[in-house]
């Protein structure tokens, strides 16, 4: 066996951040799915709301990106 316990913890931590990214993916999918559900009920109002769609996606995605950042920090900065 080689390596030390800190490195082990580092890699486990990186793996755990995948949960963050996965749940952020759920959030982004939720935004897009609800937009589509709304857009199909009233297609004429959908075109004006694409900006809102992207803002919502960006906010949901930001938290997944934060966990990706934590993974990068653990891998390359710690």
């Amino acid at each position, binding site marked *: 066996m080689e390596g030390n316990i800190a490195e082990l913890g580092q890699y486990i931590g990186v793996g755990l951040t995948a949960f963050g990214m996965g749940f952020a993916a759920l959030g982004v999918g939720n935004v897009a799915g609800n937009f589509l559900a709304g857009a199909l009920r009233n297609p004429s109002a959908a075109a004006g709301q694409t*900006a809102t769609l992207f803002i919502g996606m960006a906010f949901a995605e930001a938290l997944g990106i*934060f966990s990706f950042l934590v993974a990068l920090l653990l891998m390359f900065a710690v």
Partner: protein
Amino acid sequence: MATEATGGGLEFHPMDQFVVKPLFGGAEVHWWTPTNVTLWLALTALASIALLVLGTRGRAVVPNRAQSVAEMAYGLVHKMIEDIAGKDGLQYFPYVLTLFMFICFGNMLGLVPTAFTVTSHIAVTGVLAMAVFIGVTVIGFVKNGSHFLELFWIKSAPLAVRPILAVIEVISYFVRPLSLSIRLAGNMIAGHAVIKVFAGFAAIAAVAPVAIVAVVGMYAFEVLVAFVQAYVFTILTCVYLKDALHPSH
């Protein structure tokens, strides 16, 4: 059928593409050293100038291809500001269009094979995000004075929950430059690293066909992401501008 790993040929680390190197040899990087970042930043600026200035030089009534693209970008950003920040946001249109073109070209030029992606570095996106953050804060205080602080003290909420909301609003206000810069840089790093990881699998004969198809698919997806991230950055700038111009609602 060869199933064993062929090894050799494609030996690289997925993160190697983000290394800052001096352009004309040498190992040390000082602040004045021309590096690959300098080169691709300059190319990004030149490309957006070329599209917007040279593309519209003819001022044709029936536009050619370059002029159509330039007009589409202009119209997209113009409509975005008008819809979100309102008519009085239009005085900041030149800056927002510059921001959009710069990020869009930075992302797109990064997709050229062997190119360097400037927007994958938090040093670059951090400056863009801090410029937006500081600019928007200054605009907010200049336009509204102390009324700008009503952004954090929400009048429509019951008095009891206002302090709690104020704490949340202040935190979410100061996390803005962080989330703006990390969203852009993170998306670029992740996408390009994934392409390189799949390219690494192409060295293994058994999975090579799948890997090559995956690289093509990821590349197409990255072209979409490159545009969407520029769009998202710009649209969030417009949202922040709206908060600065009309903080009370």
